[in-house]
């Protein structure tokens, strides 16, 4: 009999923390650059685009890793509502992580901008140029980013709740040392 894994596989854990750092950086870069007129603005815009595409590629790898390595099951005593919230927020995170870079890329395409990832690396457009498409995608980009930030806050709060209050091994299944579930009586 093969027991369910207690931890995420190492590849999933590395990708999780790498993406966490990149996405959090990305959210702050994004919200900062649209509110800045200083030289930072240009610097941040030029960071935002290649970082976004890097996140898109890593999220695709993360999806493949997750699909091939089922994650640990949630604690059996987790209330139904919390269980549903856990699944819903994870699916929302995956959706937003994939959608945001694609909407950003499509938005620049619709605005008629060359999608430059550096001085000379250019991605092809993925959306026809036009003001209506641009405006809708540009607003969508902002709202999805705000939703991602709120989802991140919920995800972080839930992880800390599992790690500090429930101490049920859910947080440690994504960190470096496995805290055996229900091991406290040893």
């Amino acid at each position, binding site marked *: 009999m093969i027991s369910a894994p207690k931890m995420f596989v190492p590849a999933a854990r590395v990708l999780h923390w790498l993406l966490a750092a990149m996405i959090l950086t990305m*959210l*702050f870069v994004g*919200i*900062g*650059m*649209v*509110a*800045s*007129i*200083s*030289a*930072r*603005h*240009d610097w941040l*815009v030029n960071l935002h685009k290649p970082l976004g595409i890097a996140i898109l590629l890593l999220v695709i790898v993360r999806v493949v890793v997750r699909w091939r390595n089922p994650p640990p099951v949630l*604690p*059996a*005593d*987790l209330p139904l509502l919390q269980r549903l919230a856990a699944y819903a927020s994870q699916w929302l995170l995956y959706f937003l992580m994939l959608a945001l870079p694609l909407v950003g890329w499509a938005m620049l395409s619709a*605005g*008629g*901008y*060359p999608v*430059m990832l550096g*001085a*000379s690396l*250019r991605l*092809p457009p993925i959306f026809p*140029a*036009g*003001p*209506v498409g*641009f*405006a*809708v995608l*540009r*607003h969508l980009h902002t709202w999805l980013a705000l939703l991602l*930030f709120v989802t*991140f*806050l919920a995800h*972080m*709060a839930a992880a*800390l*709740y599992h790690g*500090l*209050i*429930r*101490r*049920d*091994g859910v947080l440690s299944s994504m960190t470096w040392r496995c805290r055996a*579930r*229900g091991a*406290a*009586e*040893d």
Partner: protein
Amino acid sequence: MAPTDEQRADGPKMSRQNAPMAVFISSHKRIGAWLLITAAVVASAAAFAYVGGWLTPGRLTPQRLVNQLQDNAGTFAGFRRNHAKGMCVSGWFDSNGAARAYSVAQVFALGRTPVEGRFAIPGGNPYASDSSVPIRSMALRFTQANGQQWRTGMNSMPVFAVGTPQAFFAQLQAMQPTAATGKPDPAKVAAFYAAHPETGPFRAWAKTAKPSASYATESYWGLDAFVFTDAHGKRQAVRWRMVPEATAADAVAPGAGDADFLASDLGRRLAQGPQRWELQITLANPGDPTNDASKAWPDNRRTIDAGTLVLDRIEPQDSGSCRDINFDPLVLPDGIAGSDDPLLAARSAAYADSYLRRTSEEAHWPGSLPLPEHRP
């Protein structure tokens, strides 16, 4: 191992076989944990709000800059928030290859690059008279064969009034028409100039400048400094301008009461044949200021003729190809980069906000202004 608080709270009651998954902790530790979680969420949200400018309403943001432009000129849905009145043009650029020694940009290789552009007058009012300001502007988008673009917005004066976005914002505030007279408060304008001596060269130019009768007879200066990079990675600070083939002597004086003479003049000229400008690129000497568009470089700086801009087609701005172009001066091909000029990032950021406002109006996005039925 000595039992800890949480073990005392829950531990002794359970056996190994039917241990619950969760190991809850004592109530006072629990309060501490909840406080920690709340603090983490609040601190993250506060940091995000701070970076986004929500906690610092005094910060100069692109939105405040564009709001001030609207306060000065009025808000006209669907139009650019500055240089609102203009028209689309198109043609090409014939490079003679001379600038290739300084920049690897494909546009400077020997050959032809298609160009879309726009002539306009400054100000946010699309119904302003062409004689209301002595400045004209030319904005261009060069689309290279490799898909990279060079966008530039130029004005018909050799220096910009100010060197920083903060000074530009202060200038807009000083120039805001008062409710009583519909004109700027002279005392505020005088106070602004007194506080900003860097406006001297621009004011000296403005004293003798007259509204031209034609777009075709003007020179257009890029004003901001940029940096060229050659094939060996060597960097060279530059400024550029477009010098017209047509001279002011060719101009026909506009009829009295005609507020839109620039469009009819350009249409008349283009019906007779293409209009041409020479692209002149001035190379900075070491030490020339690249971070201050209010300061001209000395006249004896080396200038190269990079080729000829040919414009042969005119279209109205509400249906022409320039309508949906944001002439962001930091959309640049490999071989041209922005300098340390602080106006560049501010222009890029403010143009993006203006572009979002007018495209949102085109899209009838909720909360945006309705489009007028007729547009000039």
